[in-house]
């Protein structure tokens, strides 16, 4: 990018910042971030569920304010989950699972306030690092994606499903892949995009347009979660921290390397389709532990470990928005809802975004910026209110959440049918989750199904059935090699054989060096 381009982009960003400095935008920012933090802090309410439910409230808002609200909820929820992880050892959202490892031991040592401060600084800096890459990578990727043809888009969708399936079900990748391909199959229902033939509709007019994404997501992440939360016994009560929750500059300066590393890892994980904040936190945590000089403290109350986890998960948020904006492929499950909301509001994310509405990319960067400032503000002032919210019994909260699930599903097209879709996906989602099938690839599949369908068929028609371009075009080559390697490496005999080969090579190399 040349100097003029940089100045041009900077002025667009500053223009976007200025555009949101209105009382109405600031009001929406304030309530949405606060609600996001509360949703994140409450175990059982995840970021995905929160964004899916709040999307209902944004239908009548102007598009920029609607997306601002959803991004504030997203950033707030991922941060808010750290409070519960630190105070009661239960991650508020799956993204904060790694936070419990060191956050809770710190709270047990009477350092809950300091742990919250570390989580605040980690989350804020992680968001800023991710935001920097959102501002710099998204325009480049958007322009680069203009070169993509059907072959690339076909492989991108398969790549997304396979990698997301693998990374969200590391212990048993086949379950992640099944989940992803089931999602692709769900997307096949309804009128297909080339010849308008009705697939799997069996004469039902409601299914002509396929399953709407919002009711499906509200079911899989909302109703399924209500069922899951009610099945388990209530969580213990949280106690107020005795020390200050204000972030310490010393903690940031001491672990600046960890912060930058975790921010980079988080952003990168975010960019990978369908691999979300939880994986970002775990990978950042593992990397910090490997590189740490105080490795023995990890798991016993390490400030560095906590910083890595919280920086990593919040950096995923802007990272996950990058492919959503430029390729219309979400980087995480909450970003999938965000993408659906963008379509609902008439915005057209995808490779043409930098041609049609480059200003919108910078508006999104500005939204992340404001949401980050808001979590910093709430992180410092909010601690007693959150404890009160955490004290609400789930028997009183869950029926209200379910009422919102029903409204959220209905409101998009005013059809009772969508309420049944929500119930169906909720039951399916619950059963699949109980059997350790991840939900993110399912959602990604529902989104990518149409993309895969159109592009595979278009590609085959263009080449008259010749598969060669699908494998030989440079980007296709990289995508299929990674996709197939991921599958092959998850087959135990192949993995063992590769490990043995590497260890033999290593031993021989050592001998040669001696």
């Amino acid at each position, binding site marked *: 990018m040349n100097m003029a381009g940089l100045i041009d982009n900077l002025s667009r960003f500053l223009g976007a910042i200025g555009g949101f400095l209105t009382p109405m935008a600031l009001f929406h920012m304030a309530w949405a971030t606060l609600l996001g933090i509360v949703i994140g802090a409450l175990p059982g309410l995840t970021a995905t569920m929160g964004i899916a439910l709040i999307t209902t*409230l944004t239908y009548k808002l102007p598009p920029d304010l609607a997306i601002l609200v959803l991004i504030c909820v997203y950033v707030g929820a991922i941060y808010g989950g750290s409070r519960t992880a630190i105070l009661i050892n239960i991650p508020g959202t799956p993204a904060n699972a790694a936070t419990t490892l060191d956050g809770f031991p710190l709270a047990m040592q009477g350092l809950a306030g300091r742990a919250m401060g570390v989580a605040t600084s980690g989350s804020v800096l992680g968001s800023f690092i991710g935001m920097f890459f959102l501002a710099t990578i998204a325009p480049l990727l958007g322009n680069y994606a203009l070169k993509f043809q059907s072959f690339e888009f076909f492989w991108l969708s398969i790549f997304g499903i396979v990698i997301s399936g693998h990374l969200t079900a590391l212990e048993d990748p086949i379950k992640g892949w099944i989940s992803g391909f089931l999602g692709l199959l769900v997307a096949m229902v309804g009128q297909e995009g080339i010849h308008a033939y009705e697939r799997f509709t069996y004469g039902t007019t409601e299914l002509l347009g396929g399953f709407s994404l919002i009711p499906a997501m509200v079911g899989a992440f909302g109703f399924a979660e209500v069922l899951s939360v009610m099945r388990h016994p209530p969580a213990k009560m949280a106690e107020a921290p005795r020390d200050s929750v204000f972030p310490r500059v010393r903690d940031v300066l001491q672990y600046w390397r960890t912060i930058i590393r975790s921010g980079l890892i988080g952003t990168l994980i975010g960019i990978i389709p369908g691999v979300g904040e939880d994986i970002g936190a775990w990978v950042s945590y593992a990397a910090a532990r490997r590189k740490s000089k105080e490795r023995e403290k990890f798991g016993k109350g390490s400030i560095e470990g906590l910083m890595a986890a919280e920086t990593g998960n919040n950096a995923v948020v802007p990272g996950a928005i990058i492919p959503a904006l430029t390729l219309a492929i979400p980087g995480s499950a909450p970003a999938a809802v965000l993408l659906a909301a963008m379509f609902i509001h008439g915005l057209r994310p995808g490779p043409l975004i930098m041609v049609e509405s480059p200003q919108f990319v910078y508006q999104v960067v500005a939204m992340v910026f404001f949401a980050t400032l808001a979590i910093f503000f709430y992180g410092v002032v909010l601690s007693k209110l959150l404890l009160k919210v955490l004290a609400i019994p789930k028997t009183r909260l869950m029926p209200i959440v379910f009422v919102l699930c029903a409204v959220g599903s209905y409101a998009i097209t005013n059809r009772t049918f969508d309420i049944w879709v929500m119930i169906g996906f909720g039951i399916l989602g619950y059963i699949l989750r109980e059997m350790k099938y991840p939900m993110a690839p399912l959602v990604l599949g529902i989104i990518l199904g149409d993309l895969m369908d159109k592009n595979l068929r278009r590609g*085959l028609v263009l080449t008259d059935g010749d598969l060669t371009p699908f494998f030989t075009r440079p980007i296709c080559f990289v995508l299929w090699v990674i996709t197939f390697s991921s599958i092959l490496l998850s087959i135990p005999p192949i993995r063992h054989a590769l490990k043995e080969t590497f260890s033999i090579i290593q031993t021989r190399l050592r001998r040669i060096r001696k």
Partner: protein
Amino acid sequence: MPRADFITGLVLILFSFYVIIESWRMPRLEHLKIHPLSVPGIVPAFIGGVLLIFGLILTLRSIKRKGYRIKITAKELRQLLNHPGNQRLLLTAILSIGYAGFLIGNLSYGLATGLFIFLFITLFEWKQETMLKQRTKRLIMAIIIAVISSVAITLVFERLFLVTLP
């Protein structure tokens, strides 16, 4: 888990066969002179094929881990039903599906929502107390929460955010 995987694998195999057969039966649209590789059934058949492979792997793997030994005794079934977690799950499912699937549309939205919230709280919290005084207190609390929530949700969605309610 091997037993669950065995059953899931079998279900997946049957389901993928169904998908492949349905895809095969989809029209080839020859009268429109379309390219044979752009027929509507090609991608669902591909997905069905992949799911069939996964189903086979899941089944074979679970057979290796002796997942085919499925024998549910009456005692096990009773234990399953008597498990407090499963009872809570069942009650939640019945109340939620009853509300969303049947109450909504047959009663006015505010009344249906209030009734659902009241029933949900009361049924779950009734057993937590044994004293009549405490139970009455919880009952009153359930009524207050139900009324406030249904009024607030109706007002916020319909008036503030202009969303149409069921």
